[in-house]
């Protein structure tokens, strides 16, 4: 690591970037990336194609920054964490003393599934802290919804500004506290209809058969198989660790299957459950599996208990207008 008094001395330095123009984006990204390249650090750009091209043109052609495809990386937050951790472990094992990433969560992910990406932004403060990583997460304040920017303000311990500014963020919330707080669960449109199946206190085998019995969807068989696995794991969790009654509901149309599993308990005690690799000896693997294979997983706590919602099929747009 280079000696920069404005940066965290070790571990993960996770900064938010707010920009309102291409020029502002570059004014933060370019000095950050060039400093990494000058220091000989593995330096990555993980931006959507138009922004990646903007940065590529602004950097010295021979600079050697590496570009990661956001379409592959940001499909699911649990998979992104797994990929980044594996990548960084390899870099450190190869001798890297510092790593830099300038990235953004794709607009589509923000618009369709911000809930688990908000949890991602909080979780990575813990998940990446063992690596000598500095990263910046860019958000366009012209287009990013207010509630997303509010979460960004609570999940990034630092804020980076044009010209090399790097400041502590006074609004930062400790990740476990952020993750334990109430998260909204906007209903999927098909949840406004009556569920096709409702099971009381199902065993995992009954839950699997219920999903397999849904004839209303055109989803590929492999996607249904994945959902069946995830549902089985989540129902098993509720039966083993939750509090009865357990209620499972299934909705479906041609393009989606949505399953909710509710129990009267408080949900997993581990605030990072689902997003971090689960310990083989301790348990908690079911939620992580679901986060790795479903199109979307939403977790919700309220006065009635804990709900996990699993979705297979295309993400749907539920952008608010704020």
């Amino acid at each position, binding site marked *: 690591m280079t000696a920069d008094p404005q940066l965290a001395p070790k571990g993960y330095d996770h900064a938010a970037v707010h920009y309102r123009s291409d020029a502002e984006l570059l004014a933060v990204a370019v000095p950050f990336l060039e400093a990494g390249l000058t220091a000989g650090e593995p330096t990555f750009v993980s931006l959507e194609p138009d922004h990646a091209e903007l940065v590529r043109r602004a950097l010295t052609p021979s600079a050697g920054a590496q570009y990661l495809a956001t379409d592959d990386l940001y499909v699911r937050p649990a998979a992104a964490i797994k990929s980044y951790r594996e990548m960084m472990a390899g870099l450190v094992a190869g001798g890297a003393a510092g790593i830099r990433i300038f990235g953004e969560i794709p607009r589509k992910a923000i618009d369709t599934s911000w809930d688990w990406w908000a949890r991602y932004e909080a979780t990575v403060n813990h998940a990446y802290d063992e690596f000598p990583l500095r990263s910046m997460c860019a958000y366009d304040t012209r287009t990013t919804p207010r509630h997303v920017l509010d979460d960004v303000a609570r999940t990034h311990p630092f804020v980076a500004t044009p010209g090399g500014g790097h400041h502590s963020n006074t609004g930062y919330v400790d990740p476990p506290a952020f993750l334990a707080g109430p998260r909204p669960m906007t209903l999927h449109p098909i949840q406004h209809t009556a569920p096709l199946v409702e099971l009381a206190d199902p065993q995992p085998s009954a839950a699997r058969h219920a999903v397999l019995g849904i004839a209303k969807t055109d989803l590929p068989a*492999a996607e249904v198989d*994945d959902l*069946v*696995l995830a549902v089985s*794991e989540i129902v098993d969790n509720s039966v083993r660790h939750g509090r009865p009654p357990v209620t499972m509901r299934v909705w479906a149309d041609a393009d989606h299957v949505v399953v909710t599993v509710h129990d009267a308990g408080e949900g997993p005690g581990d605030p990072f459950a689902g997003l971090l690799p689960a310990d083989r000896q301790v348990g908690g693997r079911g939620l992580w599996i679901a986060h790795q294979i479903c199109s979307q997983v939403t977790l919700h706590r309220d006065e009635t208990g804990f709900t996990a919602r699993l979705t297979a099929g295309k993400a749907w747009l539920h952008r608010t207008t704020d």
Partner: protein
Amino acid sequence: MPTQRDSEPSSPVRSHVCRGFRRPAGFAPIDAAGFAFIDHRSLFDVADYAERHETTVVLRTRLTTPGRLLELFGLTGVRVEGVS
């Protein structure tokens, strides 16, 4: 699918592993072609068996999910062989 079996705790896969089974040199096959489901706990048992006996278990199954789980958890010592 009433004629097919599920692999959950105390399932046939677990029983198979717990009983121990004779293995040909180099690998140990499990015929799971009739199973409608294999959960992650059973796969961990199989991986533990493979590790203890320094062998490779070949799981013959028509399911896609065991392969996904093995990859997700980085379990070694178990190989999935597809059957139709």
